[in-house]
């Protein structure tokens, strides 16, 4: 097998923003809207990094570089489709309708960030690598059992494809013909481990062959290609053709999280080379070249993004603190007898000023 030939990377605009493929099915207005989102999300991500450095939020996992994949995928879904993501997937959730201050609250350790608004059909982010992939299988399966017109999409990383959960999910979904779209965000690194060390396969997409499901590879930094691909894949999955595996090839532009130092393990020439094709600058080059947006538009979009992000930061920082004792809520539907007693003791301790550090 020649995986490069059987799973070619689909791409519509190249690193320099040149049109190299077929743009059909994506309007100028959609592109403008995508661009506005990409800039807003990038602005948010960079602000979050700075907030962490200033000690205003805790550990934060940046999604810079992966905005096109996350937005392009969600843009191709229907409102009732399920989204199951992980710690780096806040761009997908934001585009799906989760407030922009949620990722900030999440890094501030505010429990409300787990409570995704009812209008968004998404599970809370979780950190156990690959676990959510199986949930997507179950959600899709349940939709099928109940005759609902819903598919489930799950996001996960290249590292996650090494877990048993990933392989079990693909197999089970294939056997059950569950309407799931597996979106591997191949950002080429799992903390310090490069994809070449993660697997001895040339592509993630080729694993679809083993499970007899559809597999495609797309340039994850090209939002047009991602959007088109997902539209097509989702239509087939929705029509009952079984699950599909999409490998979006992208690049983690910076550190794994604010606690990580990539200079320890990642060559800077690789960073320079692979950052060049990053999704925001790429779309901008295209829009400029195609005359869809001009310098003034870009300035306005930047300014609006900044204002939107300022607002999100303000909301996050002034968000009402949750009472400490809410840690006893939502353990079970009803507070159990032992938990009632523990909560009373806890409450008293808080009232007495206990638990201060030092």
């Amino acid at each position, binding site marked *: 097998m020649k995986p490069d030939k059987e799973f070619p990377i689909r791409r519509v605009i190249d690193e320099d923003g040149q049109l190299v493929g077929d743009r059909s099915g994506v309007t100028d207005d959609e592109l403008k809207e995508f661009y506005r989102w990409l800039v807003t999300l990038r602005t948010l991500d960079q602000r979050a990094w700075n907030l962490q450095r200033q000690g205003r939020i805790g*550990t934060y996992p940046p999604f810079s570089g992966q905005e096109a994949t996350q937005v392009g995928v969600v843009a191709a879904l229907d409102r009732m489709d399920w989204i199951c993501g992980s710690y780096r997937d806040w761009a997908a959730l934001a585009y799906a309708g989760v407030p922009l201050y949620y990722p900030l609250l999440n890094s501030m350790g505010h429990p409300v960030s787990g409570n995704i608004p009812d209008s968004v059909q998404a599970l809370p982010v979780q950190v156990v*690598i690959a676990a959510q992939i199986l949930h997507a299988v179950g959600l899709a399966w349940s939709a099928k059992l109940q005759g609902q017109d819903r598919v489930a999409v799950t996001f996960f990383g290249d590292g996650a494809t090494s877990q048993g959960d990933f392989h079990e999910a693909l197999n089970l979904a294939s056997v059950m013909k569950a309407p799931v779209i597996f979106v591997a965000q191949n950002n080429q690194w799992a903390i310090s481990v490069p994809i070449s060390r993660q697997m001895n396969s040339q592509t993630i997409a080729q694993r679809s062959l083993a499970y007899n499901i559809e597999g495609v590879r797309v340039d994850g930094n090209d939002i047009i290609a991602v959007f088109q691909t997902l539209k097509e894949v989702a239509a087939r999955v929705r029509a009952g053709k079984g699950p599909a595996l999409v490998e979006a090839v992208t690049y983690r532009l910076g550190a794994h999280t604010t606690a990580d130092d990539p200079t320890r*393990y990642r060559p800077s020439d690789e960073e320079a080379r692979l950052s060049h094709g990053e999704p925001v600058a790429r779309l901008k080059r295209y829009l400029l070249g195609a005359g869809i947006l001009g310098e003034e538009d870009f300035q306005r979009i930047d300014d609006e993004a900044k204002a939107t992000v300022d607002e999100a930061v303000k909301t996050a920082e002034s968000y009402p603190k949750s009472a400490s004792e809410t840690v006893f809520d939502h353990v079970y539907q009803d507070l159990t007898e032992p938990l009632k007693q523990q909560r009373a003791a806890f409450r008293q301790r808080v009232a007495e000023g206990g638990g201060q550090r030092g």
Partner: protein
Amino acid sequence: MAKVTMIQAINQALGLAMERDPKVMVLGEDVGKNGGVFRATEGLLDRFGEARVVDTPLAESAIVGSAVGLAMGGMRPVAEIQFFGFIYETMDQIGTQASRMRFRSQGRFHVPLVIRAPFGGGVRTPEIHSDSLEAFFCHMPGLKVVTPSTPYDAKGLLLSAIQDPDPVLFIEPMRLYRAFREEVPEDWYEVPLGHARIAKSGDDVTVVAWGPMVPVAEAAAEKAGQEGISVEVLDLRTLSPIDTQAIIASVQKTGRAVVVHEAVRTGGFGAEVAALIQEHAFLSLEAPVLRVTGYDTPFPVPSIEDLWLPDAGRLLEAITTVVRY
């Protein structure tokens, strides 16, 4: 002798073990080039090469399951699980394989495997990373469970663990990795498994602690001392097999005991300690054995962590209660 942190002491132990025995190898996620996310394996890749310092694919069950095979095949694997919370991925391989192979094969095979993992709260991690899950593993016959609270013990216990013919779970209190330095011999030495340590001796009440709670117990003992209460702090160091004798000897002297752990309360290892005390030292007891523990909830978000975790204040209350009983 140099003063080193716990993480440096662990790094030294791994280096010495690999120097002495070419069968010793480390494997895990980000343990090679990155030197581990806490730098426990820093420098080992350069010293011992890629065959013995292995960045594995991201799969904990694969790490532990293959380490069971490596161990049976003649190697001495030291597997790192990046955070103890992710040990759930390996429960099957530890509980049904590593811990039972000797028993299953009636002694033909054994699994000299060490699984290291950072654990515990106080460092503001995201969900799952801070969980204290030791009780699950003390419930697995065939497995030993060890946790140090000082740099000196970390090195000596780890060297013993690597020498041990049976699988050892070695959990390292994250918040103590760089909390303080102490003098640690540069050379090889061992602290035997299965023996508790009197961290502070006293007469009125025994506080049984391990890992991250030992400094908390020492702080509470200090405060109690100011109120005229003499506290003995027992650092278990090895949870399984437990040093019953040391616990009983201490309680027979003091007549009172408090157990402290970060893990959730119900079914926690503190219950085991309390049961042993009432079985073996009932007539010495002047008061019921109390527990100071995490609450029966998932480990909370960082903003609530300090309130949730046992601290010196809460422990002191329990100490005072048993003394005044």
